[in-house]
């Protein structure tokens, strides 16, 4: 039945209508907004006969199979009842709101959100899939958040909306957990599958958890004690919202859920206990508190809580008749409470106040409205001949048939009567205090009757109160029957919807409640005085305090962890490494020797001593920075020598040339950093750091030792075999760099190039100044460019270039290559900068270094891409030998072009880094030269 999908889609589309008709007149806009829900109502009515004939309609469309989430709708009696409530009251609210909203209020926003809410609500009641139900469930929370805070400039509206969202959001998450558990236990989320598996679920060990989770969802949504407090604070919403969401529909979603899940979850003692006690408590608390509200809407809100408690209690009583009574009361409550809210809205709208201490004697000003409101509140009080009376009688009857509390079962009817008494009292107050009780006090304006059509919705609803009260079977009989049977998931019990059941105990209870209620109200002064002495709780303030406390706590803990101290973060990091490494290390135990070790010789011993001493010296004199630099250079030198010693000349070359550039860099850095600093760490910290550093050293050292002792079963033979034949070079390391793993090299030069760009960025608009003297206050030497240095460095330039070329070409077959060649060139040029100054070099060298970098990387990449022309993968190398006349054989290889790219990138990047850094104190500061 695709119509079911339309039922949800129509109001969804309808939420756009008010936005589109924003420019229309208010009435037309309201009318346009009403069209689609009206169409939806027509669809429901068209489908209703099928439901009345006992059918259940389904529509299913797959959505997310992995989740078991499908678009799955069902229309049965219960859904029908709720859909009708939602659509009918919704339409009335649209009409009502047209007059209620001020000219300054955005109708588009209001109607848009309202339609969204209607969609969500219809989605809930029509869902056949629990996950889908949850989806719409959360949507009601969201749209209600937006509606409560409709007047967002008011702090209480914002706060109230957030509170409602927080509480119902919490319940929603619990519900989700419950639903997912149901899915896990029963293997489906489809209601028609689930509803028949009640016994499986209730036997399952997870049943109590599921039940509690689902109930949390239902109770929070339906404002059951102790989650009730959000509802009164949601009253800062515009009254149409209160009438619609907070009396007729949304708060009923929780009740609906209980009814929907009734066949699946109900029947156990736990259900009875939880639902009954919650319902009963809510009923009493709500009724009691309602009595003391001075705010008209506050009274109605607590009354709503109380009635929701009543319905919950009925569902908890767990007899079929109680369930019927619950469904019946859902209908009745929706009707009379919506009309009461609307009446309250009219009073507020026309008198400018909702304070019952100011509102008095309105009867004279708005007799029609007063009459309507009085009828509705009489219905709320359970006065005979009105609909409220009927369901209350059924309720009383059911409370009498309980024996679940054992010897204490008598408590239930007694408490029910007490609640009814309170309900009569607050209803009496609503009538007497507002419409009679003297003259109004200090109202902002003189009240009068509302616009004609604003009253129409109230009139319709009140008429329904009376009609249902007089002819229940005729008006709602069928609906109640199908809805109840759907909720029960089985045959209906025997019940009669007549006005008169004779003089019986429920009637006595009603009479008692009436009498006592009136008495209570007339003696309210004592009660009010007593209540005034109790400490007043402002839930909104409390909520804000709690949130504030939560945020403060979070902040405190957050700061405890995130101290913005790098040293702590690093310490964490090293600690974790050590902790994680200890596991495998400790398993390793004794080092086992698999390969013959090389014999120790004196030279290596000396090198080790030098390295160790220099390393420790670096640590010890790290505060005398220049010294530390010298020491670390020594370490670097020893590392170079170790590479030579163990047959890695390429590494030695690279390490050495990088070393030189690094030293120059660090020197430059030193210029801008403090040269000496005093001790900053205390002894404890030094010991701690020393300990962790030592452990790291031992761990890494041991690992390297174990690694070196492992037998070699490497992939390297392949490289040795193929270097010459496949890569065209004798130097296997170089062939790996430019061929076997040329892609790494491409990445590596890219890194270098990016670093150069990044450094350029760092230097852009860097606020530096050159100090006029060094750290000891000594004036700088006057000789900027020592002559001897100038002469020698320019003599070295061609030599260095020549060596670069040599190293470059030789690289493929012997140690060397583009990278080292590039560094040599760059160092030679940097030497010119040092010896002659920036201006001198700049006059002679008009290269944009970033272009050089880009060109370099581009050449390497294009060399790699050239292999596509031969339908080979990127970077497939090519080489061949050519016989040249006289000169003999020469080798040409794509690797040379690749290496040329490397060379250019290295030259460009190194110069871009060093020269720009060097330039910082000259006129040629890197500025923002159009390069972004």
């Amino acid at each position, binding site marked *: 039945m695709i119509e079911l999908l339309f039922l949800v889609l129509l109001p969804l589309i309808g939420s756009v209508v008010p936005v589109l008709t924003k420019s229309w007149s208010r009435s037309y806009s309201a009318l346009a907004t009403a069209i689609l829900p009206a169409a939806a109502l027509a669809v429901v009515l068209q489908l209703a006969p099928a439901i009345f004939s006992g059918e259940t309609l389904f529509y299913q469309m797959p959505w997310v199979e992995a989740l078991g989430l499908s678009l799955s709708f069902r229309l049965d009696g219960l859904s029908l009842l709720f859909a009708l409530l939602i659509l009918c009251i919704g339409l009335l609210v649209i009409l009502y709101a047209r007059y209620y909203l001020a000219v300054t209020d955005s109708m588009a926003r209001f109607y848009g959100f309202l339609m969204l809410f209607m969609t969500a609500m219809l989605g809930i009641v029509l869902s056949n899939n629990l996950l889908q139900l949850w989806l719409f469930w959360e949507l009601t929370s969201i749209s209600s958040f937006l509606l409560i805070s409709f007047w967002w400039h008011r702090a209480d509206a914002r706060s109230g909306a957030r509170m409602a969202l927080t509480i119902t959001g919490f319940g929603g998450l619990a519900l989700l957990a419950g639903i997912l558990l149901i899915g896990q236990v029963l293997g489906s989320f489809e209601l028609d599958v689930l509803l028949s598996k009640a016994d499986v679920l209730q036997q399952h060990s997870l049943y109590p958890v599921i039940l509690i989770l689902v109930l949390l969802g239902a109770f929070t949504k339906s404002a059951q004690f102790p989650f009730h407090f959000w509802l009164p604070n949601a009253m800062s919403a515009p009254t149409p919202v209160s009438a619609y969401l907070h009396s007729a529909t949304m708060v009923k979603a929780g009740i609906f859920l209980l009814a929907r899940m009734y066949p699946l979850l109900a029947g156990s003692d736990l259900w009875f206990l939880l639902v009954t006690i919650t319902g009963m408590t809510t009923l009493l608390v709500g009724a009691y508190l309602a009595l003391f509200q001075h705010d008209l809407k506050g009274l109605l809100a607590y009354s709503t809580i109380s009635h929701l408690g009543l319905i919950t209690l009925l569902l908890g009583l767990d007899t079929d008749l109680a369930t019927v009574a619950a469904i019946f009361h859902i209908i009745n409550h929706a009707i009379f409470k919506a009309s009461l809210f609307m009446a309250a809205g009219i009073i507020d709208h026309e008198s400018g106040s909702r304070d019952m201490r100011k509102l008095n004697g309105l009867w004279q000003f708005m007799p029609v409205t007063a009459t309507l409101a009085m009828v509705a509140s009489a219905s709320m009080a359970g006065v005979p001949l009105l609909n409220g009376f009927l369901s209350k009688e059924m309720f009383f009857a059911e409370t009498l048939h309980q024996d679940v509390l054992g010897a204490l079962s008598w408590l239930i009817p007694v408490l029910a009567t007490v609640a009814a008494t309170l309900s009569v009292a607050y209803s009496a107050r609503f009538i007497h205090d507002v419409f009679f009780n003297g003259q109004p006090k200090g109202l902002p304006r003189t009240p009068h009757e509302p616009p004609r059509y604003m009253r129409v919705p109230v009139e319709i609803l009140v008429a329904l109160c009376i009609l249902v009260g007089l002819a229940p079977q005729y008006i709602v009989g069928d609906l109640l029957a199908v809805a109840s049977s759907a909720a029960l998931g089985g045959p209906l019990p025997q019940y009669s919807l007549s006005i008169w059941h004779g003089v019986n105990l429920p009637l006595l209870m009603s009479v008692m409640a009436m009498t006592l209620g009136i008495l209570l109200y007339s003696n309210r002064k004592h009660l009010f005085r007593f209540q005034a002495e109790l400490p007043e709780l402002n839930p909104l303030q409390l909520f804000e305090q709690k949130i504030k406390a939560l945020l403060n706590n979070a902040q405190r803990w957050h700061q405890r962890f995130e101290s913005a101290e790098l040293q702590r973060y690093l310490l964490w990091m090293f600690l974790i490494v050590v902790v994680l490494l200890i596991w495998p290390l400790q398993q390793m135990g004794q080092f086992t020797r698999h390969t013959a070790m090389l014999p120790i010789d004196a030279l290596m011993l000396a090198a080790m001593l030098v390295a160790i001493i220099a390393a420790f010296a670096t640590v010890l004199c790290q505060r005398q920075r220049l010294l530390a630099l010298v020491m670390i250079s020594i370490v670097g030198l020893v590392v170079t020598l170790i590479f030579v010693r163990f047959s890695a000349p390429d590494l030695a070359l690279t390490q050495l040339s990088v070393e030189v550039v690094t030293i120059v860099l660090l020197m430059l850095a030193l210029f801008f950093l403090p040269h000496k600093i005093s001790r900053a760490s205390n002894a404890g910290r030094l010991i701690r750091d020393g300990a962790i550093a030592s452990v790291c050293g031992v761990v890494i050292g041991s690992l390297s030792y174990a690694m070196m002792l492992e037998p070699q079963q490497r992939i390297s033979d392949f490289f040795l075999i193929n270097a010459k034949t496949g890569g065209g070079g004798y130097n296997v390391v170089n062939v790996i760099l430019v061929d076997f793993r040329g892609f790494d090299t491409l990445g590596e030069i890219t890194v270098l190039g990016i670093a150069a760009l990044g450094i350029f960025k760092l230097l852009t608009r860097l606020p530096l100044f050159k100090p006029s003297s060094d750290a000891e206050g000594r004036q700088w*030497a*006057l*000789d*900027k*460019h*020592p*002559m*001897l240095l*100038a*002469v*020698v460095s*320019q003599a070295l*330039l*061609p*030599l260095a*270039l*020549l*060596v670069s*070329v*040599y190293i470059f070409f030789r690289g493929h077959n012997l140690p060397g290559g583009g990278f080292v060649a590039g560094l040599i060139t760059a160092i030679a040029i940097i030497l*010119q900068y040092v010896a002659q100054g920036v201006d001198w070099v700049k*006059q*002679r*060298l008009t290269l944009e270094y970033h272009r050089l970098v880009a060109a370099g990387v581009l050449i390497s990449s294009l060399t790699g891409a050239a292999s596509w022309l031969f339908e080979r993968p990127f970077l497939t190398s090519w080489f061949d030998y050519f016989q*040249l006349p*006289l*000169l*003999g054989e*020469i080798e040409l290889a794509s690797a040379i072009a690749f290496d040329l790219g490397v060379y250019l990138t290295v030259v460009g990047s190194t110069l871009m880094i060093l020269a720009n850094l060097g330039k910082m104190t000259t006129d040629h500061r890197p500025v923002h030269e159009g390069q972004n």
Partner: protein
Amino acid sequence: MLSLKNWWPTPVRSLFLFLVWLLLNNSVALIHLFFGLLLAWLIPLLIHKFRLIQPGIKKPGAAMAYGLMVMWDIVIANLQVIRLVLGPNKKLRPAFVTVPLDLTDHLAITILASTVSLTPGTVSADVLPLNAEGAEPRFLLLHVLDLADEAELIEQVKQRYEAPLKEIF
């Protein structure tokens, strides 16, 4: 302008580079000769702008002789220095000495200073005056490890090294 000066600015340097190229490659194979020539021509051309204005070598023969003499002096100097180093520190007579210069050319002065540094017990500390960049240098400041007679030393530097250099350039 297609003059030789533009296309082959520094023949001596080119020759030098050519030799270095052969040394680097450790070979006189035809291909190395070819590339040596190519580079010896290209590189000076490429960095022509970086060259400081210098006089050419007038007497290559004298330059060779100067070089050999310096080599010899280095050997002798080192033997003397070793004796001084191993002897007691008290016997040392270190001194700062200024040598007045007749040379004006930067390259020549640099070579003189380098020579002095490479040879017996002397290190060129500075070229004076220090201030005023671009001013003509007049003195060479030396540090001497063991100074017997200041005048003799000055004379030796001027005669043995400065004089031939004046000839060469």
